């Protein structure tokens, strides 16, 4: 999925920013966020999509018919858990030692 966006004079890709973060991605069976994508079909607002600063949620905004969620790029901010009021998001921190590590903060 291309995340290239255009703002005024310049284009950028949010995924470039994510490339700067150190990730240790856990196996699928331990994914820290689980989205019940069936519930998304009925969702009128997709607030997870708009809120997520790491573009982990791709849906109708990208021309997709079905929600495509990737926990791999997650920066563990917690926004999607707050934004989804449809009971589709099960959220927790990644297991100890997994997920992101900031070097600056």
């Amino acid at each position, binding site marked *: 999925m291309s995340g290239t*966006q255009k*703002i*005024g*004079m*310049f284009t*950028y890709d*949010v995924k470039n*920013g*994510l490339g*700067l*973060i*150190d990730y240790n991605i856990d196996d699928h069976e331990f994914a820290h966020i*689980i989205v*019940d994508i069936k519930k998304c079909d009925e969702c*009128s*607002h*997709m*607030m997870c*999509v*708009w*809120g*997520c*600063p*790491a*573009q982990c949620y791709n849906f109708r*905004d990208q021309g997709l018919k079905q929600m495509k969620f990737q926990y791999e790029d997650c*920066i*563990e*901010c*917690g*926004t999607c*858990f*707050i*934004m*989804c*009021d*449809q*009971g*589709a*998001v*099960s*959220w*927790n*921190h*990644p*297991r*100890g*030692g997994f*997920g*992101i*590590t*900031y*070097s*600056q*903060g």
Partner: protein
Amino acid sequence: MDEETDFDAIVIGAGFAGAATAFQLLKEGIEGDRILVVDRGEPIGGKNMTGGILWGRELDAFKEYLGNWEMDCPGIERCINHKKVGFLNNEDAIFIEGRFASWDGTGGTEEPSQRSAWSVLRAKTDAWLAEKMEEAGIFVMAGIKIDQLNINDLDHTSYNARDLTDPDKDSGVGKAQKWKVDSLPRELVDKIRNGTISGIVQDGEVMTCKVVVIAEGSNSILTRAYHFDRMLHAQSKDDMLLGIKEVIHLGKERIDERFNCFPGDEERPPSGMAMELALSLYREMSQDAWEKYPNTKGQYPRCGGFFYTNEETVSCGIIVQLKSLPEGLHTYDLYQAFKAQPAIAALIEGGEVIEYGGHLCPEYGLHRMPHRFTRDGAVVVGDAAGLVFANGMQIQGMNNALHSGKLAGAAIARCIANGDVSAAALDATYTKALKKSYIFRDLKRFKPATKFLNHPGNFTWVPELIGKTANRVFREIGEEKFSAEKVLLKTRKELRKRNKSNKKGMNIFGIMRLGLLGRKL
């Protein structure tokens, strides 16, 4: 010594709140090997992000463990003596700027001369604090996430930690949402929510203690799951801020030059600039979004910008009030639009982005605090308890986290000494001290200010009006000049014509009301 429990206190989270609690416990005479601090980050600090300016000198209280933290801590970057407030629209930028000799701790005679504002980078600071905790003899465990607490007379295997954050099969929507824990047997739920907490569960193993300190920060899963805060059951984006920030490397010399900073010497740390900005950058983006997603038509995202100088880098970011985010606008685009504003672009020109990050920050205010800060055998501190003072422009969370940690540490040591760690005893010490502290006083006093700063005008026409008026007053393009007052009135008229919400917001009463609210700042 009493060895019935593995530890006297277990602190979950080694952020500012957790570290302060641990150091305070030590200071009160609890032995280091009776204090355990666990954090999910490895190294510690790796999960943490802030704006951020650390206000005040709370760390002085731990001099005996931290030494000269101003000079020695690698994450304490620059001493802020230069503060700017800005109003940005897509083209114009107006700044109000102050330089204060007394903030340097070297000059100034009228105001207390003291260094009391610092730019910080949390990954480095928290790792250093963890090191100091270990040096002081405290048990510190990194890379461990706690998702279950141990409760007396409750077998922790009788429910799954994930039940606490999993929506129920038939979860319902909006405020009626239900979680798996709601469908567990009544008796079990009662114990989870009201039993006596007596330790943590880690990988199926129980570690016991007298008091658990929940210092888990803004994603307060445990606080909500264990019912300090009823809000798990109505997940809500009200009163939550999302911060998106980049750390951009410019190099020390370039920063000293570009921002007129003192470079620092043996005794004095380098000085720096802190800037907060009111933004009206999103008019066009919002209007485009409304066309595609009419559900949230008329809604502008309420964002504030911040820009802080670190030693080698700058922290550049925005804070978004999640409630105000309209459909059709990605938060990362809001950040990029901020970065592209000409005045901001000029400040980071030639820099290299070295980190991108996002983090939540509670903005609860008094009306939306957890309904209790203690349970039998446990307390919550810092962001987990929502102890942040935020007014849309400035955030004070780190000093509050440190302060609440101190109060908790002192209270817990006293309760342990008295042999009573019940909720009532902890309330009589910790909660009482908290409510008397400057944290609560600030929150109370600034309620009206919050009203002013959240006023929609501040995110739309106010920065536009200020920017445009100044643009015209300051400029000479060979046309007849008018007095500033006339230009202001003319600009107001133009902006009012431009759209309906301006027309309404900028009527005389609207402006007066905003002015009156502004007095309370």
